[in-house]
């Protein structure tokens, strides 16, 4: 009396491995939210101008079985969490890719000296901020009056 044939067992074994692997990915994501956030930002920053490589894509739904944490909601919150160039302090600015403490201090000084930024492109007037950095920041920051 055997419940399953050999083929059925192989199929079930593959499904079981996949299920466990999916759970492992889910657990890892919850244990390292900061790494996940960085990886998810990765494909949303535009590729450097002139590069022909397609933007890096990460698996769209690694959270099988965890419908509450859909990538869509994560994306919405991160969009809502754009950093405001006219309000952010040095600590907040250093969270941006390509902005260290020195540049962050310069941005704040430039803002205090010349008044609020009107567009993201005004960052160009801050010494040390390259065109490439501005392109990378464009989707992560906003400017309010």
């Amino acid at each position, binding site marked *: 009396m055997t419940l399953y044939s*050999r083929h059925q067992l192989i199929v079930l074994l593959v499904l079981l491995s996949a299920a466990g692997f999916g759970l492992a990915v889910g657990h890892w994501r*919850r244990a390292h939210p900061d790494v996940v956030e960085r990886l998810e930002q990765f494909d949303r920053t535009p590729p450097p101008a002139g590069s022909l490589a397609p933007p890096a894509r990460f698996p769209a739904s690694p959270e099988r079985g965890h419908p509450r944490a859909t990538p869509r909601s994560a994306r919405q919150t991160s969009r809502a969490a754009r950093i405001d160039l006219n309000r952010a302090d040095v600590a907040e600015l250093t969270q941006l890719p390509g902005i260290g403490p020195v540049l962050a201090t310069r941005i704040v000084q430039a803002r205090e000296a010349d008044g609020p930024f009107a567009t993201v492109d005004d960052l160009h007037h801050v010494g040390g901020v390259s065109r490439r950095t501005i392109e990378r920041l464009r989707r992560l920051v906003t400017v309010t009056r």
Partner: protein
Amino acid sequence: MPWRAMPLAPVAIAFAAGVGLAPWARPDVAWTTWLAALASTGALLLTGRTAGATALLLVGVAAVGALHGIETPLPPGHVARLDLPRTAHVDGRLVAEPVWWAPDRVRLLIEVERVDGLERSGRIQATVYGVAPPLVLGQRITAELRLHPAIGFRNPGTFDYAEHLKREDIRVTATARADRLTPVDHPAPPWPERIKRASVAAISQALPRASAALLAGLLLGERTALPPELDEGFRRAGVYHVLAVSGFNVVLLAAAVLALCRLARVGRRVSAVAAIVVVVGFAAVVGPEPSVLRAVVMAVLVLAALLLEREASVTNSLALAALAILAIRPGDLLDPGFQLSFAATAGIVA
């Protein structure tokens, strides 16, 4: 019992057992069990001992069930980690259709985006007192809420409301005044909700008030307009379940679609596809209760068997339905609706 005719039943039972054991399971033990089960099943398969491989495979399934059922710690920005009770300014989105208990009392389920301007996550069930503006699923709102941890006052052994809320992933409840709540955008209701509203409106146009409320309850499980004395009458007579949407509704609907298609001389496969579409649409309209999900999964499997001209095993479909529901919402294992629905169906078909 012909176990070979229902290969999914042992898997479903093992998975449910694992989910049930989750409160006592330790993640490291469960992960080790899973890995060991995978390796030893593979080894036994290679040596051709299928009976032993089957047993170990089911142990692995139970380990995965336990891992899936283990409660994960709340993320750092979760609303339940705030210092409660407190009054806070909450921005969020409605993730369920508002439930109107009365014209001046509505219950909302809010997916939190910000609390007092800081980014937070989690869900809040809020009751709003006073005449609130029209609200709809998916709408963004901003409101001043009085937040409490979800607690249930109960006698030991009876229904535990806090546990019930936790299964719905709600750990914080709130109250608010309607004039402190402002919708931020005005999206169109999603199509299932539009169908539901149109049906309820059509019913209440054609029938007197009490009959309309009763029919809406029978057909769509929409009980909010039911007069209190009628509600109480059904409870006292012990037949309140006829007002809940269940597998019976799904079967009637599927059978009606099949019969109509036959009258119209449509082919068998096309009728099966039509019935699947209608049944899934019905589930979207009435909402994801365990009994509805169970019935819909089973109906889709039986109809798919018709489509593929295969023999359908009802017990196997029931097992797959249990697997699917527990995979999506492991907490449902302890939900009385889930237990009654599956126990009753298993009793009928086994």
